């Protein structure tokens, strides 16, 4: 028999970015809230303190802040015919663990989607016709528009403390900003950060080619800042231990720096760590949830936590897994197209060019996770899909973000990987290389989906989630297009040596190298229960008192890092709960 805890108004599953947003906004309504976090507690002090945090082996390589596969993981196969095998050690993606979630150790590249990305099917239909959509691509519009989300993007950016320069302020295009971005009702909360040498070189070359460089929008403080919850940030010192690390000095935007300090002071909020939610419990009629059952790590027992509202904010992969295990919808069947859970899983299609300059000093260790200059000249809104033969786009960025030598040691092709030649190579080239990255969209396909694995189980005996995923021609073509455009730009910078790394047509998904932790879809938003798992307010169609936040809502992935859209959708959802749901709990329309 599970132990039973006192009933709460709201139970939050996972205390990362979206869980923290739900926590503070609903706590402001006076609701009694508990957040259950499977990982450990952690905060700037004492956990991210200097110098202990400046440890590449522990955090960058052994990944001590991340989800441990021994606790939770997925299985992976590249097509329905293959046997899925466990993702035993982390590689391709690094889900977060512990208070703050991946929001603690992200890079801070904070983006809004372009307007057309939220209505991409319509954009394609209106400009080229639906016949250009490749067979098997589940191209969709979001059931919310950019204009509806704009106030919530702004709200998230103010809370998170984002630095940048608006390129489109209420429709006015401003020199030096991104002319292709969606309109902003206000400028960024903080001005852009200073520009490092590599980004300045890229900026100059891009300008000379007629492109429109602008500073990356960064969840990294450029000045002293106080956010709407009264949380304080101080300017980043380009410590170069940003991605995969907690910030030791209140400069990186994270749940800790932006929300949790204020939230923990609220008497109606409580959080419990070492509390891994195992399933959402449904009422007998199956139409609402009664609460969640979790594993209490300290007591080593199952606990039932009753609640009136359940917020799933455990990251895309964990949300979909919990929903599959709890019957919060039917699993997607790629053959019939029926079922919604696990549908439209998508990822990110990236590539880049490395350049070596014998005489340049880049000091690669001087940087932050969201450093750099960017161009959006090959973004989704700019590409002629009909002429180029793909649907998608990417943003390009150059900016140092870490010079940590175990992982960041670019060497010219042909340099031996060991021995005297390798040692000579690292001495010759460390600090003299820079790169431009292409960060591209990834569409959704019937072939790429999530369900429960038939063989492998977790430590609680629950089936692991199974990921069926491979690269598809459409996105690979987009990637090759970027290569053809980026190489001339890189060559114009006159490096001594340059080399491109873009996946080719036919590339197979490899789980080993890190790619991104931008896993999307699986509980997508839709107008109706036949097509998606949640509605425009992230409310599940199955149980109206369950809301599922995060990138699982994405109908396909955008060309950008996901968190700006994740944060905007989270504020959109909590706004609907506050203004529409609490007074009359029901399915929202």
């Amino acid at each position, binding site marked *: 028999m599970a132990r039973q805890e006192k009933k709460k108004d709201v139970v939050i599953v996972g205390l990362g970015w979206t869980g923290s947003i739900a926590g503070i906004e609903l706590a402001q309504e006076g609701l009694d809230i508990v957040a259950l976090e499977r990982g450990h507690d952690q905060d*700037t*002090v004492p956990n*991210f303190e*200097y*110098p202990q945090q*400046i440890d*590449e*082996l522990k955090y960058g*390589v052994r*990944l001590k802040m991340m989800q*441990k*596969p*021994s606790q939770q*993981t997925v299985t*992976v196969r590249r097509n329905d015919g293959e*046997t899925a*095998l*466990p*993702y*035993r*050690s982390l590689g391709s993606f690094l889900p977060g663990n512990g208070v703050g979630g991946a929001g603690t150790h992200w890079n801070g590249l904070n983006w809004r989607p372009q307007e057309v990305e939220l209505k991409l099917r319509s954009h394609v239909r209106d400009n080229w016709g639906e016949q250009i959509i490749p067979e098997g691509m589940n191209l969709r519009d979001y059931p919310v528009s950019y204009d509806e989300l704009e106030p919530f993007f702004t709200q998230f950016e103010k809370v998170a403390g984002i630095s940048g320069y608006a390129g489109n302020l209420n429709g006015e295009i401003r020199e030096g900003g991104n002319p292709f971005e969606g309109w902003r009702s206000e400028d960024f909360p903080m001005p852009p950060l*200073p*520009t*490092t*040498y590599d980004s*300045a070189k890229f900026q100059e070359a891009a300008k000379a080619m007629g492109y429109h460089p602008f500073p990356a929008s960064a969840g990294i403080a450029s000045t002293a*800042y*106080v956010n709407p919850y009264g949380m*304080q940030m*101080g*300017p980043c*010192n*380009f*410590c*170069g231990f940003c991605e995969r690390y907690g910030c*030791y*000095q*209140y400069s990186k935007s994270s749940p800790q720096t932006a929300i949790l300090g204020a939230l923990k002071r609220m008497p109606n909020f409580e959080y419990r760590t070492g509390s891994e939610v195992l399933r959402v419990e449904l009422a007998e009629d199956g139409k609402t949830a009664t609460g969640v059952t979790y594993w209490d790590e300290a007591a080593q027992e199952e606990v039932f936590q009753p609640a009136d509202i359940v917020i799933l904010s455990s990251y895309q992969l964990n949300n979909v897994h919990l929903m599959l295990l709890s019957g919060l919808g039917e699993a997607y069947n790629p053959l019939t197209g029926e079922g919604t859970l696990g549908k439209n899983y998508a990822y990110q299609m990236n590539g880049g060019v490395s350049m070596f300059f014998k005489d340049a000093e880049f*000091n690669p*260790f*001087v*940087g932050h996770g969201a450093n750099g200059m960017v161009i959006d000249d090959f973004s989704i809104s700019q590409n002629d899909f009909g002429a180029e033969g793909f649907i998608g786009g990417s943003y390009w960025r150059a900016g140092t973000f870490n010079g940590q*030598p*175990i992982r960041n040691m670019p060497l010219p092709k042909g340099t031996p*990987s*060991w*021995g*005297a030649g*390798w*040692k*000579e190579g*690292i*001495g010759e080239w*460390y*600090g003299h290389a820079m790169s431009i990255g292409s960060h591209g969209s990834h569409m959704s396909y019937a072939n790429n989906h999530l369900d429960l694995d038939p*063989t492998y*189980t977790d430590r609680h005996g629950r089936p692991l989630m199974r990921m069926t995923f491979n690269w598809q021609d459409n996105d690979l073509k987009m990637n090759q297009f970027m290569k053809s455009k980026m190489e001339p730009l890189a060559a114009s910078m006159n490096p001594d040596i340059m080399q491109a790394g873009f996946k080719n047509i036919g590339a197979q*998904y490899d*789980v*080993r190298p890190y790619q991104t932790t931008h896993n999307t879809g699986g509980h997508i938003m839709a107008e109706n229960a036949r097509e998606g798992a949640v509605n425009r307010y992230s409310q599940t169609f199955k149980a109206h008192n369950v809301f599922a936040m995060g990138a699982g809502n994405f109908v396909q992935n955008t060309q950008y890092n996901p968190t700006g859209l994740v944060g905007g959708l989270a504020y959109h959802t909590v706004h609907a709960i506050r203004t529409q749901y609490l007074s009359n709990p029901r399915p929202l329309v």
Partner: protein
Amino acid sequence: MTDLPGYPSRRSFLKATAAGAALSGLALPASAQQTPKPVSLDDYQREYLNADEWAFIMAATARLIPSEGDGPGALEARVPVFIDRQLASDYGTADDWYMEGPHDASAEPARGWQTPLNPAEVYRQAIPAFNAWCQETHGAAFAELSPEQQDASLTSLQNGDVALAGEVREFWGLLLSNTKEGYFADPQYGGNHGMQSWVYIGFPGARAAYREWPERHNVKYPLGPVSISGERA
């Protein structure tokens, strides 16, 4: 308040930082230390590796990052100590990894780690197998071969020309990455002795404070490294 050379000025930090509590993040050891002289590699007390394995690791890492030329070799950096300690740690035993069966050790490499063995076990099983191959091919265990034969053997291992069981297929990749980790990781893990590898390439280690540096374009950063424990070089 005295400012340590090379560290961010505590006063300017105080002014620039919104939250005073961050100051505790800069509690540096009052006196910078010189690296103490460690026990010789021959007298080192091993935590995981046995004598034969140790002889192999000493010989192999010495070829992977040789002493000749500029910069330290793996032995000067004490990489073997690093590897021994890592294998004795929760990394060696793969505590964080999902190790439940069934295992398909013959799966193609792109499917990731699929052997039932943990890294420590991979070393334990692969070293004798590789030594046996060296014996058969070159007439002696790896550590006894000439440097040229050793390089040729490692090249065969790298190219997959040494027939190893599927369970230890990851051995080459592990050996090479663990060697480089030991070369570049903070010295607290036993390798990168005296931060010599950081000095060699120009990485300032745990300094991690460069507020004035982003806009100093094309100027080489002048200060040497510090370690987490406050050593300098």
